[in-house]
């Protein structure tokens, strides 16, 4: 069930995929491989959430594929008993594009990290989003390079001291949601590793979305970036920071909706709900590109606020559907005659030394 009913055309992200024969369990999706992340790594929580959410899609297990790049998070496919491809650094969206275009009967997930997706793989990511290839992209953002043991990443906050930046990093990070929206992504969501429910909701909507869906997952790396999202976890700190949006609902947050999101010029701000006229509380509309962008700007590198949920979801024809349609139309129109192709329009025949021109 999609989290948001937008009254869009009925073709869903999973419509062409064979359904499972019977009910499935998380265990069915668990491979025989020993899980190898550091103790306490946020990836465990995401893995558990994915294993338990996959059965709810009720697809044939063998029709699910996880394609990943390189990074700690990119080990993900090994731990799921589906088809999996642990590819090379940054290229998973490209590989998944080829797969998705040629196989409409597969549910294709991409698993990637902040380095994999936004550093080396940034271009493939934005192109997959622009093309709207039917992929569900899980971007594990721990704001660090985990696998290579702790260099700063394109989402690390300015001033971050890491192995490669002993005096602090000097580059402004990407806001991955803003970037995706700038690239015309049709689905952008965000969730937290430890928030099983929120994560599941967004993942499910993403998987059911037809087109490219990007889900940024804030993920803790206790080894190289310990507690990086703690302010969004610890109730005392998180309550004024965590903003969860739901399509069609006014955006309030904090204990008993203490805070509200309101317009500030062309952007958004936060005010005590009590001080805001109900009509002035912004109502989330996942189809509004500019609102989604403004929401993305509410979240900044300092994590003063962080917006979770489905920030954008709109329907737009997917690259793979259209590409397949062109091929299908051509195939259906017939004329795929290899002999005719090879012969072309101008041929001549030699027989016992005599030449006869045969021009069509």
């Amino acid at each position, binding site marked *: 069930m999609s989290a948001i009913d937008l009254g869009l055309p009925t073709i869903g992200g999973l419509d062409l995929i064979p359904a499972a024969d019977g009910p499935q369990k998380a265990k069915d999706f668990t491979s025989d491989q020993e899980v190898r992340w550091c103790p306490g790594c946020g990836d465990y929580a995401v893995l558990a959430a994915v294993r338990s959410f996959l059965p709810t899609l009720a697809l044939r297990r063998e029709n699910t594929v996880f394609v990943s790049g390189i990074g700690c998070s990119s080990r993900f496919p090994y731990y799921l008993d*589906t088809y999996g*491809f642990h590819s090379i650094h940054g290229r998973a969206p490209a590989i998944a594009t*080829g*797969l998705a275009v040629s196989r409409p009967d*597969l549910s294709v997930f991409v698993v990637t990290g902040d380095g994999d997706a936004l550093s080396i793989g940034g*271009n493939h990511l934005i*192109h997959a989003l622009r093309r709207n290839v039917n992929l569900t992209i899980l971007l594990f953002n721990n704001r660090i390079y985990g696998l290579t043991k702790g260099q700063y990443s394109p989402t690390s906050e300015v001033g971050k001291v890491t192995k490669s930046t002993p005096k602090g990093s000097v580059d402004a990070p990407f806001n991955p949601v803003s970037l995706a929206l700038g690239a015309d992504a049709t689905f952008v969501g965000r969730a937290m590793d430890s928030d099983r429910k929120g994560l599941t909701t967004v993942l499910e909507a993403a998987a059911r979305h037809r087109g490219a869906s990007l889900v940024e997952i804030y993920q803790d790396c206790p080894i190289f970036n310990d507690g990086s999202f703690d302010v969004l976890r610890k109730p005392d700190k998180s309550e004024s920071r965590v903003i969860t949006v739901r399509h069609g609902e006014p955006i309030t947050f904090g204990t008993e909706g203490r805070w509200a999101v309101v317009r500030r010029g062309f952007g958004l701000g936060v005010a005590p709900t009590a001080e805001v006229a109900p009509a002035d509380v912004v109502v989330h509309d996942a189809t509004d590109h500019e609102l989604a962008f403004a929401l993305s700007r509410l979240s900044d590198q300092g994590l003063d606020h962080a917006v979770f949920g489905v920030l954008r979801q709109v329907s737009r024809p997917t690259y793979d559907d259209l590409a397949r349609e062109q091929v299908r139309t*051509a195939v259906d129109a017939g004329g795929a005659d290899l002999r005719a192709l090879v012969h*072309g329009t101008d041929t001549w025949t030699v027989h016992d030394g005599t*030449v006869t021109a045969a021009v069509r």
Partner: protein
Amino acid sequence: MVQQRVERRARVVIRFAGDSGDGMQLTGDRFTAEAAAFGNDLATFPSFPAEIRAPAGTLAGVSSFQLHFADYDILTPGDRPDVLVVMNPAALKANLGDLPRGAVLIVNVDEFTPRNLAKAGYAGNPLEDSSLEPYTVHQVPMAALTAGALEPLGVGRKDADRSKNMFALGLLSWMYSRPTEETERWLRSKFARRPEVAEANVVAFRTGHAYGETTEAFAVTYEVAPAVLPDGTYRQITGNTALAYGIVAAGRRSGLPVFLGSYPITPASDILHELAGLKRFGVTTFQAEDEIAGVGAAIGASYGGALGVTTTSGPGISLKSEAIGLAVMTELPLLVVDVQRGGPSTGLPTKTEQADLLQALFGRNGEAPLPVVAPRSPSDAFDVAVEAARLALTYRTPVLLLSDGAIANGSEPWRLPEEDALPDLTVTFATAPNGSEADGTDGRFLPYLRDPETLARPWAVPGTPGLAHRIGGLEKADKTGDISYDPANHEFMVRVRQAKIDGIPVPDLEVQDPDADVLVLGWGSTYGPIGAAVRRLRAAGHLIAQAHLRHLNPFPANTEAVLRSYRRVVVPEMNLGQLAFLLQGRFCVPVDSITKVSGMPFGAAELAELLGPYVTKEEVPA
């Protein structure tokens, strides 16, 4: 009408040269079609200027098309033209150097204005000094005559100017006694939607023809009889088109959908263009954001059970090398086409070269062997594409196909294959488990359990129940395909990947040997020039053996034996001696190199001369 002499010729080389805007490629193509339909054997060599249209009238903007046609089977587009048609001073300047004494030079005099002469860098007018004395020069006011003929149709001077290439075509068609109806029909169909343009071109064509017939300038016309080629049906084809058709045929014969992931690059782009128009054959073309995404998507498609293909030129291969390594490690079928061009770096995009051979073999990190094949001529690109696909599908490996600029854009008659005669490329996907669990129960799938004969691993595509498995770029454990850091396993896997490629049975190298003790060995597009040079040497009474490699990795099993059975082995290449190096490295047999790296193919005469010292047992350059 003047009475002209008709002479028979066995072979003629014509070159049309003009500004990029003068339609020389079209003119050449059409004359080629006439020659083909007439039954001549032929070979062509289009030569483009740099990729960007240079200012009209400059040397940089000169475009030319050379055609060699004959009444026997020929091998190259010819070294030097017998007839050179030049549409402006720049074309004269750029091409005169290639013209042998006594050749015919047909000049569109209308363009020889002081301004145009200056643009081409002429101080004076070569038509007015003695510099053209060695040639038979025909000064023809093509533009004026065309304009005059079109005036009654109400075609203005500027539009008329666009048809002067058809005047030239008409004149040459007359000179070589070509049938004209077909060209007129072709013009009418080409411009079907703009009949006035069609008419103007037809009139220009006829005017050129009539000009030859009626003026006294041309005392002789020529006839080149049809060539007696082996029985069969023929067409003219370029290498890029043949390669595209080969890919389609491989899709057909394997029963797999074809997926091309590609990024445009000269001179490979036309393969993408061609395949983009062949969707009806179940071909999907994906113009990727870059070369890496192109090969990546092809790998993804192969993983999904398609025939994944990626096409590019040298710089693109550099970019794809990491991903090709992934295909080596994951042992997925993949066809990688490199249409070589002048290098290094961006180099000379529109020129030809064979300098990516060692990159094809070694341009990846780690021990990453793969088969390498190369077509010898435009039509051969069809067969070699099918062969490359066969290797990729049978051995579950990326295969590198090395074409080049000369093959890509050159054309020749192609004896058409029958579909049934093509190899059967049927693939069997894995559908059932092939191993047992640790506890002995059946039903386990081992994605790296190899076929004992081919050493290929099973190809289990997503969607197959019971065979879910994971692959990737980290070293794989034998059989299970799990990640493995075990030293002994790595040692084994590196050697088994090498053994898989080394063990591919490749047809023996065939040698044409008239009792010689010198072998000239080539690969790729040097086939034509080598063959032509060898013919000349043999005609001059020398004994010289010839062989040509289609498989560059692995080499045919008899290669070493062949090499060792000659006093001298000479390898002409359009690089600094890469195949020679490879042969020495593999077999430790001394090999002599003849190299040319000018962006231009060897000429037959040039190569015959370079080979001369070897056969005459003269002192050979060390």
